C-alpha cells in the first residue's frame, strides 16, 4: 500500500504539468474550432475550401517526398558509415548528425545561404552556366530545407539499427553464394525495415509540422503550419486556426500510429 502511494507521489508532478499544458490545451482546441455558427460543418467546409485543401495536399505530398528522399540518402550514408572503418569516419558522422537540433528557422537560413541570392549553389551555377540559380524561396527550397533536418535523423536511427544487426547473417548469405549486393538486398534490407519505417514516419511528422523553415523562407506555397499561423495572427480567425491545428495533429498522429504498428505486423 505504501509502495503504491509512493509511486503515485512520483507520478503526480509530471502528470499535472502534462495535463495542464498539453492535454487540456490540445483537447480544448476542438471546442474552440466549433466556436462558429457552422459547428461541426466547419470541418467539411474547410476541406472543400480550395485554399485549405490545396495547402493540406501540398504539405502532405512535400513531407512524403522529403521523407522518401531522406531515407534513401541518409540510409545509404548510414549503412556505409556503420559498416566501414576508415580514417575520418567519426568526423564524417559528426558532420552528418550536427544539424540534429538546429531549430527550423536556422535550417531556413541555411537554405538561404545555399540557394538564396548569395547562395553557394547560385554562385557555382553562375561560374559554370553564366546564370544565377536561386530556388530558396520556391517549393524546391522548402524541399531542401526539410531534407536538411531529416537526413541527420535518418542517419542516427539507421546507424543504430545497423550496429545491432548480426553480420553473421550476411556472411551466411555470402557463403550460400549471394553477391554482396544480393545479400544486402535479401538479408540486410529486410532486417532494417522497422527502423526505416519508424524513422521515415518521424521525418514525415517533423516535416508536416515544420513551421520555422517555411516561416524563414516565406515561400510562395503555403504549408499548413503557415496557414494556421496567418489565420491566427493576421485574420484573428481562432476557430479556423484551431480547426486546422486539429486536422494537422490528427494527420501526424495517424501516420506515427500506423508506422508504429505496421513494421510489427511484418516482423511477426
Amino acid at each position, binding site marked *: 500500500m505504501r509502495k503504491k502511494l509512493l509511486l503515485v507521489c512520483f507520478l503526480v508532478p509530471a502528470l499535472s504539468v502534462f495535463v495542464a499544458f498539453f492535454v487540456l490545451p490540445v483537447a480544448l482546441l476542438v471546442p474552440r474550432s466549433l466556436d462558429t455558427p457552422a459547428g461541426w460543418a466547419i470541418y467539411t467546409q474547410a476541406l472543400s475550401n480550395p485554399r485549405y485543401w490545396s495547402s493540406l495536399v501540398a504539405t502532405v505530398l512535400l513531407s512524403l517526398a522529403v521523407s522518401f528522399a531522406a531515407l534513401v540518402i541518409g540510409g545509404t550514408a548510414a549503412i556505409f558509415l556503420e559498416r566501414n572503418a576508415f580514417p575520418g569516419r567519426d568526423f564524417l558522422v559528426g558532420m552528418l548528425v550536427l544539424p540534429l537540433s538546429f531549430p527550423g528557422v536556422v535550417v531556413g537560413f541555411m537554405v538561404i545561404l545555399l540557394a538564396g541570392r548569395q547562395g553557394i549553389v547560385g554562385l557555382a551555377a553562375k561560374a559554370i552556366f553564366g546564370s544565377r540559380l536561386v530556388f530558396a524561396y520556391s517549393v524546391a527550397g522548402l524541399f531542401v530545407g526539410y531534407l536538411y533536418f531529416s537526413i541527420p535523423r535518418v542517419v542516427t536511427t539507421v546507424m543504430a539499427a545497423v550496429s545491432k544487426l548480426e553480420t553473421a547473417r550476411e556472411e551466411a548469405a555470402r557463403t550460400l553464394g549471394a553477391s554482396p549486393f544480393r545479400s544486402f538486398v535479401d538479408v540486410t534490407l529486410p532486417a532494417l525495415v522497422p527502423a526505416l519505417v519508424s524513422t521515415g514516419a518521424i521525418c514525415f511528422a517533423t516535416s508536416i509540422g515544420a513551421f520555422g523553415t517555411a516561416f524563414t523562407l516565406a515561400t510562395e506555397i503555403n504549408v499548413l503550419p503557415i496557414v494556421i499561423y496567418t489565420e491566427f495572427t493576421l485574420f484573428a480567425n481562432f476557430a479556423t486556426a484551431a480547426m486546422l*491545428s486539429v486536422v494537422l495533429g490528427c494527420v501526424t498522429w495517424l501516420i506515427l500510429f500506423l508506422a508504429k504498428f505496421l513494421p510489427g505486423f511484418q516482423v511477426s
Partner: protein
Amino acid sequence: MKKGAFFWGQLGFTLVCSCFLLAPVVQTALTALTVDAFRGLSSGFTLKWLHKVLATYGDTIFRSFYLALATLVVCVLVGLPFAYALVKAGKARWASFIEESLVLPLSVPGIAIGLGILLTWGGLTWFRHSWLFLLAGHCIFCLPFMVRSVAAVLRVVPLPLYEEAAATLGADAFGRFRRIVVPIAGPGILSGALQVFTLSIGEFNLSWMLQTPFTRTLPVGLADTYASMRIEIGSAYTLIFLLLIVPVLTLMRKIPSLMARMTHRVEAPDTLAAHPPVVMKYREPASDLVSITLENCSKTFGRTRVLHSFSLHMPKGRKVVLLGPSGCGKTTTLRLIAGLESPDPGGKVLLGGKDVTRVPVEKRRVGMMFQQYALFPHMSVAENVAYGLRVRGTPPGETAKTVDDMLEMVRMRHLSERGVGELSGGQRQRVALARALAVKPGVLLLDEPLASLDAILRVGVREELDRFLTSLGITTVLVTHDQDEAMSVGDLIVVMKDDRIEQIGSPRKIYHEPATAFVAGFVGGSNRLEGILEEDALRLPGGAVIPVASLSGRKPGAGISSVSSLPPRGKVSVFFRPKQAQAAPLVPGRMRGTVVSAHFLGEKTRLVVWIAEETLIKMELPPGETIPPGREIGVKLMPESLLLFGESG
C-alpha cells in the same frame, strides 16, 4: 582487403551528403566574420557583426540560456521521479498508457500545441506576460526526452535487484531512491539534460506562438534578423547560436560510450590459476545466533499459488540448504525470510523467536547475497561494503574499520578501491559476502551463491565457502539447485518440489533414505526404471524378474522399501545407483541390455546401457575393464539396494 569501386562510390556519396549539411554552416561562420558579405573574404575579417548582435540581441541570448536552465531543472525534478515510477510499474497497462501519451507532444506539431496553450491559458494576463508561459511550453516539449532517457537507463540495469540488495542492508524507500536509483540513472539524466538543453535553446514553434515583446528568445530573435535580410547580422547571430549548442551536441555524442562503461562490465578471466582459493581467515561469530521459524507460510501471486502452506524450523547456527529444481519455490522461501516478500495472511516468520512478519526488510538485520551479487555498479568495492553501515548512520571511523576487517576477511583488501566492474566472478562473490556480513546480520541468506561462477571455479569456491561459513558459525540459509553443493555445504537439507517440501533431513539421510520418488531421483544420480510389483516378484524392463522375498533383505532403518513398507502391488518406480548394478552373464530372469557407450573416467569406467524403449541406465565397471558398445550383457541388480516407490510417491 582492397577497397573497391563500391566503397569509393559510397564514400563519395557520403562526402557530398555531409558537404550539403556542412557548407552552409561554414558559410555562416565566414559571413559572420567578413566585413562585406557581397565582396567576400577579400574584404577582410571583422568581429563587428558579433558585437552588434550582442549589443542588439544580447537579452534574447541570455533569456534563452536561463530559460533552458529552468526547463532543465523542471524536467529533472518532475521527470526523474516520473521515469522511476514508470520503470517500477513495469508492464502494468496504465504505465504503458501513460508512457505512450507522454510522447504525444512530439507527434503534435508545436504550432498546434502553442495555439492550444495560448487559447487555454492566454486569459491569465500575468502568466501570459511572464517567462513562465514560455517555460510551460518548453517543459511540455522537453519532458518526454528526459523521461525516455532516464527510463532507458533504468531499464537496462537490474534495478529491483539493486533496490532489494539496498533494502536488506537497511535502506528505506527514500534512501534507496537517493543513493541507488539517482546515481545509477546518472548517465540517463546527463544525456536527457543535454537533449533538453539544446532543444529548449533552439525551440522556435512554441516560442514564436507564445512570445511577448518581453519574452523573446534566441530563435525568435534569429527569425527577426532573417526577415530583415541583413545577411551579416543573421550569420553572426546564427554563429553565436551554434557556438552555444555545438559543444553540448559534441558532449552528447560521447554519452553512449559512457553508458556502455556503466552497463558493460569488463569480464576478467576467472580461473583457478589466476585466483587460487584461499582459506578465509577464521573469525569469531559475527553476531548473536538467531534461529529461523516459518509457520504456516504460503505465498500467492495474484491467482498463482507459488508456495503451499508449510512450517519449517531452522535451528540457530546451522547451515540449511533449500534444494530443488528451478521454480520449486525455494527462492520465494528465502525471500520470505528476508522480508522481500510477505507470506499470505496467517503465515508467520520468526527470527530468534520474535515475530518479524510485519517488520520491513530494512529493519530485519538479515544479510543477503543475491544470485548475481547485485553489487552497486556506481560504487567501489569499499563503498559497496560500507553501504549498509552508512545507511544505519554508523560513525565514519567505525565504518572504515569494519570495512577493512570485512575485506581482510575475504582477502579483498588490496582491491578495495576497485570498481566492481573490474572484478572477476569469484572476487565479486567475496565482496557480496563481505557486504552482507558487514552489518553483523543475525542470519545469512545466500541465493544460488555459486551459480554465476564457471564450473571449474565452482568446486574450489564451494569448499572455501563451506569452511568460511563453518568458521563464522552464523545461521545460514542457502538456496541451490545443485545437489553436490547442497551435500557439501548443508547441515540440514530441505528438498523442495512444485512449491512443497518433499523431505527435510541431514545430507546422509537424504542420500540414503529418500522419502519420495522425487528425492530419490533428484539426489545422487540414480537410475530410474518403471516396473510392476506383483504378489511374489518385481518385474522390470529388460526381462528382469526379482523375487519379492529378496527385496526384504534390507538393513533395518532404511525403512521405506523393506517388505513391511513395500508399496501396494501395481506400477512402481524403482531407483538404484550406478555402482549398485554389475555386468554379468546373460541368464533367464536377469535384466538384458545393450551397451551404448563406455566412458573411461580414471578410477572407474561408466557404461550407458540400453534396456528398453526410452530406458537407459548408467552402471559402473571396475577400472581396467571395458565392454565395447553394441555388446549384449546381463545386468545384475542388488535387490536389497533397490528403492521402490508406488505411483502416489
